[in-house]
């Protein structure tokens, strides 16, 4: 009798261990796919973006090209579609070695592919980007320190340079606080998923 009960306990124990292993495999696969998806997308976007260097100097002011976003900061950010998903540009953080595509609208399926715009526009200096804490996405952002360089490039090839200014830990309900007061914000979950780590940046 005890023998049988012992076997039963061992079986339950093994099932639990297998579940842990299964969940780990799922997480690792998800993370790996996210890396592949975003690397593919950023490659395509980089081919399409023609980076605009500083204002070209013309002798004749009438032939100067003024970026559209300066003429109309309220304009929608231009998008490029890849596999039915609209992207608004790329994000580079040289100090942690990431270069990622940014999806225009956030959703849970989109977050599994790449970081997403959660709010705002770079043209209005209020954009907030959300991403999973995958290693290839935003896990490392908590290691950023003040002054680190962050670069966003839009689909028109305009480059926006930022410096990390502050890090904040916010509860999941702090929507208002997350979306106000900073030029540029990146956020992801802490490892337990209970808080959001926000990296606040100032435009240079």
């Amino acid at each position, binding site marked *: *009798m*005890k*023998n049988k*009960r*012992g*076997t*039963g*306990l*061992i079986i*339950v*124990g*093994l*099932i*639990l*261990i*297998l*579940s*842990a*292993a299964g*969940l*780990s495999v799922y*997480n690792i696969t*998800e*993370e790996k796919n996210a890396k592949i998806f975003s690397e593919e997308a950023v490659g395509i976007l980089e081919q399409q973006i023609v980076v605009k260097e500083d204002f070209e100097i013309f002798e004749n*002011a*009438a*032939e*100067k*090209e*003024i970026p*559209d976003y300066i*003429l*109309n900061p*309220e*304009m*929608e950010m*231009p998008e490029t579609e890849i596999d039915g998903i609209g992207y608004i540009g790329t994000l580079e953080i040289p100090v942690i070695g990431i270069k990622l595509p940014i999806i225009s609208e*956030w959703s*849970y399926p989109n*977050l599994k592919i790449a970081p997403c715009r*959660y709010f705002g526009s770079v043209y209005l200096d209020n954009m907030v980007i*959300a*991403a*999973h*804490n*995958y290693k290839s996405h*935003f896990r490392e952002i908590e290691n950023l320190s003040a002054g680190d360089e962050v670069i966003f490039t839009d689909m028109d090839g305009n480059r926006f340079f930022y410096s990390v200014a502050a890090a904040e830990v*916010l509860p*999941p*309900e*702090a*929507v208002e606080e997350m979306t106000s007061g900073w030029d540029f914000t990146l*956020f*992801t*979950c*802490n*490892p*337990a*998923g209970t808080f*959001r780590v926000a990296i606040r940046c100032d435009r240079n």
Partner: protein
Amino acid sequence: MAKAKKFLALLLMLIILFCASAKVFAVSEKIDPERKSSLEIIFREGEKNLSGAEFSVYLIANITENGEFVVTEEFSDFNVNIIGKNDEAWRELASALEGFVYQNGFVPAAKGKTDSEGILVLGGLKPGLYLVIGNPVSVDGYTYFAETAIIQIPVLDNEKKVWNYDVSIKPKYSSVPDLEPDSFITRKVLKIWNDKGYESNRPKEITVYLFCDGKIYDTVILNEDNNWRYTWEKLEEGHQWLVSENNPEGYTVRITKEGITFVIENSIEKPKPPEKPEPPKDPDEPKLPQTGQLWWPVPVLFGMGLLFVAAGIFRRRGGYEK
């Protein structure tokens, strides 16, 4: 009709502010609105006569004997928004009117070319407000672009305090050296909607015309899909490029050129009361997205599993001993 009145009001305001002659308006004699008048155009660069330049004049508004303008039927549909009261605002208005003329294919009240002296006299005009458009002309290796202007006939002679019905102007111009045949430029158009809170009033799309020396060169549709903008590449240099749009109902238009970009700004005229805001889709308290992976159950499951296995082994061993 309401539009015409508004336009008239805007113009009048500008003209009163602009024309020094208007200050002595009240003391001067009445205007004869039917008097045969003329416009002399002197087109010269220093001593150089710019001959062969074609100018066309269009009657924008008739003038009454009291000096009030009445917008002609043709121009009454033009719903312009002018900001400021300086030369720049006038240039803007003239340029926007020019696009309107091309778009509608209006027939000029008179036209002609400057003679060997660089002079053109257009006679037989009625008193009124005129738009004067010059086509580019090439002289001695340079192309000259006359600036489109708005001219009032008659003008007040300040010394004699009488109205002068034979007006003479010297158009402003810019010039560029004649170019190799394969010189190209880029022009862009960008639409700005100035209608915050009333976005639903916007038309789905807008047609924009690009004119080359007054003739339609291209027509494009601007809409949300192309982000309300368009770029023309490889346009031949040495021509006059200009845009106009199909004026959306209920909006005024303002066209400016910023660098190589034509900015067409449409502002809503009489906002209706805003629609009731939609109730939020999610009645729950909004939360920031969950951006963490489900890692915490892994050690918990694994630990519990180990405990169960250990307990099972212990049980089985205990069973053998007894």
